[in-house]
């Protein structure tokens, strides 16, 4: 009787082990199936402006629009789109305003050139002051 009990206990352990291995294999398959990570979604969402909120990124916002946008990003990543492809398709739909890092265009030229211009003017003033003292 004890032997039989021992045998069934051993069988149960083996069965549990098999189930456990199968489950872990399955999990491995699931994680291998998706080629993107949630970090990638967050990274993209952090660089997108929530257009209906004030001063928030898509990542920070819980608005309806932001939640849909996060789902959209996940869907696009699942379809194998790259970050650049996602950004450019959203710029096409919503304009440059949606990205926090707008590309150089006629409208954003001043935005890009101004820091450099101010740096050069500041530098010129400093150089002038130094020469004045010498």
């Amino acid at each position, binding site marked *: 009787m004890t032997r039989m009990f021992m045998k069934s206990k051993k069988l149960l352990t083996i069965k549990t082990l098999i189930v456990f291995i199968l489950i872990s294999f399955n999990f491995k398959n699931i994680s291998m199936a998706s080629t993107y990570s949630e970090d990638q979604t967050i990274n993209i969402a952090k660089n997108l402006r929530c*257009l*209906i909120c004030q001063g928030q990124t898509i990542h920070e916002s819980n608005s*309806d*629009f932001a*939640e*849909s*946008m996060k*789902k*959209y990003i996940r*869907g696009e990543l699942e379809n194998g789109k790259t970050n650049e492809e996602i950004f450019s*398709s959203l*710029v*096409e*739909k*919503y*304009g440059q*305003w*949606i990205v926090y890092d707008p590309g150089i265009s006629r409208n954003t030229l001043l935005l890009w050139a101004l820091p450099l211009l101010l740096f050069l003017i500041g530098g010129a003033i400093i150089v002038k002051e130094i020469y004045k003292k010498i």
Partner: protein
Amino acid sequence: MQFLEKTKKSIFSLIILVLLILSFFIFKFALEKEKIYSPKITDNQIYTDFEVTDLIEEKKINFDQILLGKSFYLINIWSSWCEPCKDESDKLLELRKDTRIMMIGINYKDKKKNALNFLKLYGDPFDRIFIDKQGTISINFGAYGVPETFLINEDNKVLKKYIGPLNDKDVYEIKKIINN
């Protein structure tokens, strides 16, 4: 020397004055500007290569298969829980009378039962209705939420985009575009 000092001072105060006037106008126009941001769409072409599910038949179809055979398409994003959508329902019913327009409804984050009840109550202006459970279909159009309306032509070009409920002025504008 004193004259030079004086001119220097007056130039300085003039610059300050000009800057003050300039900032006054900047603030004035910025505050008067409408708060809702509506982008200038760089590419007027609407993106149509995605799958949609019909609300009634629950069949999947590619959206570019829908945009066939008519001169104009009016895409309206709506939901049963959206209050302003109720206000614009009679405007949509009026536009539906024009046979040159195909009325396409995008049912945004809604339940089928509630959506059908809404249509029973306020009238069904749509030729086709598709489901947007996740809100991602609307993003394909470049929309923000509900209600939102796009008028597009047979070349899938966005002629007009309306954020918020349609009013009489918008209906008049749409009719004018179609008649031209």
